[in-house]
């Protein structure tokens, strides 16, 4: 049997993936890079590819990058709350517990926009 090729790595910072890109939808426009005041995202050296999340430990989860994405809610970019901060809730009537990111989420998406809409105007 052939040995597997395995590498040693220094530890990752944790959380390591506050922001995730879908390479098939994101076109590397880098608008999110320009809207992150903490400088967490860097443009990919390969043009057209999604930005690199270079400083995941510095993300303060403001979501400005996600909100500014011209591709809207298509999933080009999404925010990942780290496991310990995936919010939990409970159904008042049934007492059933849920959490963000649970497997086999039985709940339908609630598509109600916030008051004033997704892109509020005066």
């Amino acid at each position: 049997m052939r040995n597997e090729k395995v590498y040693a790595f220094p530890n990752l910072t944790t959380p390591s993936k506050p922001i995730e890109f879908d390479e098939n939808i994101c076109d590397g426009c880098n608008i999110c890079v320009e809207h992150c005041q903490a400088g967490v995202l860097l443009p990919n050296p390969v043009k057209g590819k999604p930005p690199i999340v270079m400083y995941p430990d510095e993300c303060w989860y403001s979501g400005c990058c996600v909100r500014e994405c011209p591709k809207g809610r298509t999933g080009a970019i999404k925010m990942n709350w780290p496991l310990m901060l995936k919010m939990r809730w409970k159904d008042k009537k049934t007492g059933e517990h849920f959490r963000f990111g649970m497997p086999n989420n039985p709940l339908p998406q609630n598509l109600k926009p916030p008051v004033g809409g997704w892109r509020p105007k005066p």
Partner: protein
Amino acid sequence: MANEKKLLQKVAGVIEWPWPVRYGLENEVTTDVLVLGGGLSGCWAAISATRQGLKVAIIDKGCVAHSGCAGAGIDHWHHACTNPACRITPEEYAQAEIESLNGYNCGIGVYITCRESYDTLLEQEKMGMKIRDSEDELKGAPFRDEKTKFIFAYDYENKYCITVWGTTLKGALYRECKRLGVNIFDWVTLTSLLTEGGKQGARVVGATGVNVRTGEFYIFKAKATIVCTGGESRLWHFSSEQRALYSDRPPQIVGEGWVAAWRAGAELSHFEKSTPLSTGGLVGIDIVHYFGGYWEAEWRPCTMVDAIGKEIPWVDRDGNPLSTVLQRSQPAPGQKFFLPNLPFVRPSIIPATSRDVLRKYAEPQLMRGLRRRIASGEFVAPLYADLPSMPELERRAIFGLHMGQEGKTAIGYRMLTQAGFDPDKHMLQFYPVEAVPRARSFFFYKGGLVPDWDLRTNLEGLYAAGEALLTGAGASYSCCTGRYVGRKAAEYAHAAAEPVIDRKQVEKEKARVYAPVRRKDGIDWKELNIGICQVMQLYCGDIRNEESLKVGLRWFEELKEQEVTKVYARNPHELERALESLSLSTLGEIVMHASLVRKTSSAWLDFRRSDYPELDPPEWHKWITIKLDGDKVMVSELPINYWGDLKENYEAHCGL
């Protein structure tokens, strides 16, 4: 081989720095007014000064479109006393805010804000901010005014706080700055102030900065300079990996404007004040704070229940349970109005004899002492925000508007609803926070630069606005003081002599700024930051005394000789962080000096000295100011109400 390299790059994350780096390359910018920081106060200062016909530049270490504490949004617009539905006057409100902190609230900025908050909001509407429920989604709600379509928060009778679509604020200000031709320098961080002849205490003639992407140096020459750099974080507590999880403010804001001003000889006050850090306690567990919002703010007046469904009572200012939801947003019988989020001091440490003023303006709130009650078994954790039980329009306002517009929570609305959270059926979980022992934070109504009625500091040519100001707090405050100071700084700049930069001062600063990138090894910025936090926690924490403070100062001196000379940065981003850590060590010294000179304890400042345990003796009811003169700290003081008559002075100085 090529595949392995690709894999290593992918996993180790090493890429070539994406912007051209030119350390040491100088960019010289001449302007009439220089605004340090492009947050709410900075944008407004720039807009105001430009309207006076002057050339204005803003520098911001991030992107002005989204920078600062309000960059991601806000939900509350306070102090709107002159709005047609408000029943209290600016004088009443300002007086209440000052009284509620026993006078430790600089009346200048507060009163300016009470006078100008509503007008500022209307101007922001013209710039593109959404401030009313024009779609009538909340029609009929007790917190809505049918005529103006304003949504109100906190006190539904007196209506001084308007709920706004704050995700639209920063963009509107940014576009206005661009429209007016403000020269915006994104990605340039302030490193120092420049003074006439390079002398400390002399007129401020500009500033230096470094680009956090290219590493280039900036020399700004300006007739008037305005500090709009906001507050602080990372001084007592810093989690190297989970840094931003517990922070409701962008963690790269560390008070560099104060430190630069201090080094230039500016007068500061009130840095001995702090609060226990409860915002970072259960890092990673405390959920409704930050990602979900504060129960005291965004979630007002939501019913809260414990794990077994037992309701936690909302109580009036005397601790009596309230029976209706509406009562949570009404003043008590005999009370004219209440202040939001009062008190900003811990009532338990205010002597009973001084609590009258807290009671006078106290708001209806959730029953206090939750941690204790959970520990005793009275309530069972975790707790839940019982949205389904709320009246429909309140429910919609809390989840769909407040949570949807406040900075850290706006993204939360989207994520939770995508995951199927339904406020009509579901209760969001949270825990009451724990304080981190010894760790403090400035929070609101904190120390800052001491202003006069021009919002000018003791240094000629140097002004300030927003949370960089003594006891500055909040969005409306920042916008209004920014709007005001722009007028005043412009007035000065119109007639000011041409500034002259001292080349020696610039060279010295360049050497200091680039030192980290000239080193290949040493100590990284995170370790330096945590080291600073440790000194603060051990020698300048919850309880202080002269011995410990002096030892703490000694440790900071040694840090300067040792670790500070070893901090390294491998690229401009790390340089930005290294400079922040260096600034934090000076900020720590400022807090220690301020703590040394107040030789008494104070409940109002949450300031405890074991060697001077007496709380608030009357002769210490004043502001203590400090400033640098060489390496000596000069101490002075100001009467508690040094600003004099609010109305008279405002009208004499406001320039309107």
